[in-house]
């Protein structure tokens, strides 16, 4: 088989190799750093480096929620309305990761937005709502999620949301209504919130309703009580004809799924992960090698693992040398010196897990540890 190489390819190939050699020289000039380490100090949003974003604007939505407009790095691949993004924020100097829905479709200014509701004791959400300011940098991952409208967009939609569950849905609505060829279908939005004032995007949603774009049913649970799924057939008589999306607290979603399953209907659900890890004394520790051990709350994981024959990196065995640091992928450990807890939740803590010193950490609940992931 013969392949004809277009003449342009040779030029671009030589251009490429010049670029590669220049880069090699630059790398040799800054070792042991990488060129990216250096360039990050001047242009952290350029392509080819870790994906980050800079906060452009923080817009309060209610007293306890705010929308962050973020300029993402060059390598941002775009997203579909309804998808979410993992965000790493520095709170009290510590990088913590959380997941938030993207609340706009693709925007003209190439920025993305997330809307965050400050939950009680929520370290990251409170930071983002109350302390984040324009200019702050955030770490980002690419958009993910299956909670998106199919193409072609179904003519009749039912959107059931509660609280911050509106956030993926607002992205869908904004996108539908900002298109040059507006969506002509029929949308019912059934939204629950604690009070009228607590409705995130309240004025905007009521505006859509006033323009006849959506049929909005608001439930304010302080006066109306919680949504009873049994009432659904009365509120939405043509439920069976509608393509349905739901996002909100687990209790609501469970009830809805039961309701739909009983009628053999399909429901698209977006669940926000529960963030609580219940810390105990000791627990089951599983390792990347497949070994699983029972460790008590007073024995360092390093000792427990070695006693079970797991090959572990180790060093001083007293918490000084960092020779035993490996990532905790999931679970909780307790620092035996001062009782401090370290918790790793997949999808919330850093992509590589949370590095822990196994020689001074004991299991505080079930843990998964990647003992082979000693970096470099």
């Amino acid at each position, binding site marked *: 088989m013969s392949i004809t190489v277009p003449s342009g390819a040779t030029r671009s190939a030589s251009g490429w190799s010049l670029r590669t050699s220049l880069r090699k020289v630059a790398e040799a000039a800054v070792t*042991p750093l990488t060129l990216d380490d250096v360039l990050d100090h001047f242009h952290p949003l350029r392509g080819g480096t870790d994906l980050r974003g800079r906060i452009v604007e923080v817009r309060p939505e209610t007293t306890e929620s705010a929308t962050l407009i973020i300029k993402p790095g060059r390598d941002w691949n775009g997203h579909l309305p309804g998808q979410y993004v993992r965000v790493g924020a520095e709170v*009290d100097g510590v990088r913590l990761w959380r997941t938030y829905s993207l609340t706009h479709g693709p925007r003209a200014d190439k920025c993305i937005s997330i809307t965050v509701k400050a939950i009680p004791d929520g370290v990251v959400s409170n930071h983002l709502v109350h302390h984040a300011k324009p200019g702050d940098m955030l770490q980002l991952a690419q958009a993910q999620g299956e909670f998106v409208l199919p193409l072609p967009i179904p003519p009749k939609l039912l959107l059931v949301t509660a609280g911050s569950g509106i956030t993926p849905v607002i992205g869908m609505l904004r996108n539908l209504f900002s298109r040059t060829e507006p969506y002509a279908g029929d949308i019912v939005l059934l939204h629950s919130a604690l009070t009228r004032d607590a409705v995130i995007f309240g004025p905007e949603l009521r505006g859509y309703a006033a323009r006849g774009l959506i049929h909005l049913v608001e439930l304010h649970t302080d006066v109306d009580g919680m949504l009873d799924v049994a009432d659904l057939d009365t509120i939405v008589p043509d439920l069976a004809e509608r393509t349905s999306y739901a996002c909100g607290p687990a209790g609501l979603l469970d009830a809805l799924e039961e309701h739909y399953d009983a009628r053999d209907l399909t429901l698209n659900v977006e669940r926000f992960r529960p963030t609580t890890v219940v810390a105990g004394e000791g627990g089951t520790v599983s390792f990347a090698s497949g070994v699983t051990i029972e460790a008590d709350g007073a024995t360092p994981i390093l000792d427990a693992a070695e006693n079970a024959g797991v090959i572990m990196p180790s060093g001083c065995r007293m918490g000084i040398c*960092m020779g035993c640091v490996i990532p905790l992928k999931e679970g909780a450990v307790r620092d035996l010196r001062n009782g401090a807890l370290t918790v790793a939740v997949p999808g919330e803590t850093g992509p590589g897990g949370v590095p822990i010193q196994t020689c001074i950490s004991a299991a505080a609940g079930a843990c998964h540890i990647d003992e082979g992931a000693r970096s470099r």
Partner: protein
Amino acid sequence: MTAITKKPVNPTAHLTPEDFEQIGIELDAIRQDVLDARGATDAAYIHKVVDVQRRLELASRAVLLFSSLPPAWIVGTIGLSVAKILENMEIGHNVMHGQWDWMRDPKIHSTTWEWDNASTADGWKHAHNEIHHNFTNIVGKDNDLGYGIMRVDEDQRWHPMYLAQPLWNFINACFFEYGIAAYDLELGRNLRIPKEKRSEQFKTNLSKTLKKIRKQATKDYVVHPALSIPTGSFLPTLAANFTANLVRNIWSHSVIMCGHFPEGVETFEKKAIPANETRGEWYVRQMLGSANISGSKAMHIMTGNLSHQIEHHLFPDLPSNRYAEVAPRVQALFEKYDLNYHEAPLPQQVYSAWHKVVRLSLPNGWLATTNLKNLPEQTKLLWAMTTKGPKIRRAAAARLQQQARRVEQAKAA
């Protein structure tokens, strides 16, 4: 120095087991206070230092592209020297101690950091964090005591080769980064083993270190000089980079000598360390085995806060910017338990450390028994001890020590 257990009065003799335990509790409390307070300002500090260091290094190297002009050479060399010192001391050393791991920033983390030094991060972390910090000043276990090439304790038997140790020490200071690399590899010990019997671990580490040295040398002595060719500055840039490395080496060597070498810092006997050394006992060993340097804020930063060597050895994983703040509390604890908080300005500590190197390069008691009048005889004696074999050496050494004791008694009386 003499191991504390061999001294006429052990400086810890007045401490009861309860005291040791209480010291441990009080130091743990200081540590916990810093952990509780640690936060955004600390993170901002290290980010700032890293940012300043990188910009300073880039700017200095940019200036050195024109280093055939003498003012550019001077400015660039000073800047690069400072940048290299900051990188090794306040950033590299401390990051590799895990002082900033709590930030969970993979870019500033003990497991990912690599420093501007001939020694690899992994090799250094093993030798420094695992051995030296753990077995601080235990004769025979802590290789930082003389780096295996020097006599730093009266208890080490004198041998004529130690006469050259001030010279060794000076050469080691000039090429300190290579000294550290060799020492992290335990090169001396490994080279004595026949080639085919050397461990795989050693071979891998050796090849990693050689690769690192090659990259470091290519950067400083090939790439940057070559980039300076257009201005005719190849040789000046090469010389500037060599000078900056030399300055960094001598500076870090001096700071590190001040940490454990000055007169009055205690050493410990291997066999006197209990098998189950308690937290309190370990703390006390760190307290007495380290010395601080007093000085300005700039001096503290340039030493990587190793000027707070005592605090660093007590709390090696606390952020370096917090040592100054805990120092008064640590010092108060020393006073409370009647222990010697060893602190002096840099020139004094450097002098003291060098004095010890010179004193111990000579047989025990020689310096104390020598004055201007008997200098010729004493020199003759030293010559005999150097050339006439072990028997005469031992006899003369015994006599010298006896005379030294007499001199001391006479002084006391």
